[in-house]
């Protein structure tokens, strides 16, 4: 009898640990290189996909990366379609009202204006221009608040679409993350340049979670702390962002 109870208890414990092994689903946009994009094989790749693998290995959880459109990425997190957002999402007070963030895994990064080379834009006194942003981003909120009065702010579903319209001459400039725009400028062969001053918005990029996932948040935070300390995170940033950093090690 005692043996039976012990076996039952062991089975229960097994069942519990099997549940703890449940897959953590991580959503990314897949259209924001080098943060996250779809590689030639059509699979998600990039800085955040590498980082997710590192975090999940540290936290000893099984992870699966899926893609979801940017504009529905928070609603679908809340609806439970996945558990974590890692999509170059800046930590802001507005977003903190609905979701939680881990500590940042990318330091606060200045936003920049990009324009065709030699356009001679006066960014400090922008007037009567068409300014492109990706909808639902910190830059979109900033542009609505500061530029919309005298300019037309045009919102796009993805940053790539905004870039396509800038290339086609439908926009005068785009406001976006510096870490997104810098490789674009470098690879454009002089067609585009960064103009004006840095715009500091946001508190760095972190992973977004539902507010009731305290346990998962702790796991991710602990893993990030460890990855910052052992230099893995700085290594990944240097690898994907053209030798930037180090930010988190001495």
């Amino acid at each position, binding site marked *: 009898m005692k043996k039976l109870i012990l076996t039952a208890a062991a089975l229960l414990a097994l069942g519990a640990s099997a549940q703890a092994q449940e897959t953590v689903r991580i959503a990314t946009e897949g*259209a924001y290189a080098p943060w996250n994009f779809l590689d*030639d*094989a059509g699979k998600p790749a990039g800085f955040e996909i590498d980082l997710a693998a590192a975090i999940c290995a540290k936290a000893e959880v099984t992870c699966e990366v899926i893609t979801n459109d940017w504009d529905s990425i928070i609603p679908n997190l*809340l*609806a*439970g379609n996945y558990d974590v957002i890692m999509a170059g999402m800046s930590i802001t007070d507005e977003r903190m009202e609905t979701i939680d963030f881990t500590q940042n895994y990318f330091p606060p990064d200045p936003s920049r204006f990009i324009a065709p080379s030699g356009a001679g834009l006066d960014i400090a006194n922008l007037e009567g221009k068409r300014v492109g942003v990706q909808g639902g981003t910190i830059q979109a909120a900033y542009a609505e608040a500061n530029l919309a009065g005298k300019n037309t702010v045009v919102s796009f579903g993805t940053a790539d679409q905004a870039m*396509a319209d800038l290339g086609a001459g439908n926009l005068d400039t785009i406001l976006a993350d510096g870490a997104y725009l810098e*490789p*674009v400028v470098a690879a454009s062969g002089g067609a585009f340049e960064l103009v004006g001053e840095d715009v500091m918005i946001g508190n760095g990029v972190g992973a977004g979670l539902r507010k009731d996932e305290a346990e998962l948040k702790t796991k991710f935070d602990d893993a990030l702390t460890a990855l910052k300390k052992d230099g893995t995170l700085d290594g990944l940033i240097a690898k994907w962002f053209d030798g930037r950093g180090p930010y988190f090690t001495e």
Partner: protein
Amino acid sequence: MMDDVNFWLGYLTNGKHLTWYASFQFTIFAAVVGGSLAVVFGLIGATLKNSRFWPLRLIGSTYSSIVRGVPDVLFFLFFPLAFEQGVEWVMASQVCTPDTIAAQSAAWPPCKEANWFLGTPEYLILASVSLGLVYGAFATNVIHGAMRSVPRGQLEAARAYGMTARQVLWRIHIRQMWIYALPGLSNVWMLIVKATSLLSLLQIADIVLWADRLGAPNFLPAVGLVHEDWRWRYYLVLFVFYILVTLVSERAFAALMRRAGRGILVEAR
């Protein structure tokens, strides 16, 4: 020259492009299943509209007039979400306990156990049902009109032969109705085919979404081939695809017309 050919062959058959080609199955599935459902809903709607019992008539005409008036994009977004929440609401009343409700921080669903995860297969089925519902309302009108066009004499003759009401309906009325309904139904079918381009609204990685992704300008060698804005080239392929579907559909409907017209008086055609 050979290198060029090899390069483009390689580029057009990389994983991304293969995924794009594979995504045509979603479009074709949605069109075929949506189209079949539209005919089924159309038959049901027309039968209701023809009913001698006035509440059923009311349901039939309400369906065809309301759903026809709502933009398909709106219905496409509304129906799957409403259906999902309805299912979750029913599940919640079964599986949620006060504890699990208290533990849930999001406004919906009431507890995590009641959450229904919608992946591509689920969305695809819901999208097809939406298409069926929207265009079934058009088909209702087409079929209703076609059933009125069947000459009365045919039905009277059938009754005179001693057929039951059900036999008259299936063997004579609906059998002869197709010749009048098919031109209208081919129109409805073309509308359904066009509406399949909306699938990406429901997070289905369909042909339009992939054309958008593949055509977007790329500046980073790490991501793949560096190219400018190529979206119009990819949209052109979709253009050609839809034109081909139109041509095939026209042929198929012509064949159906010939089949439906067998043994029917020439003046009806």
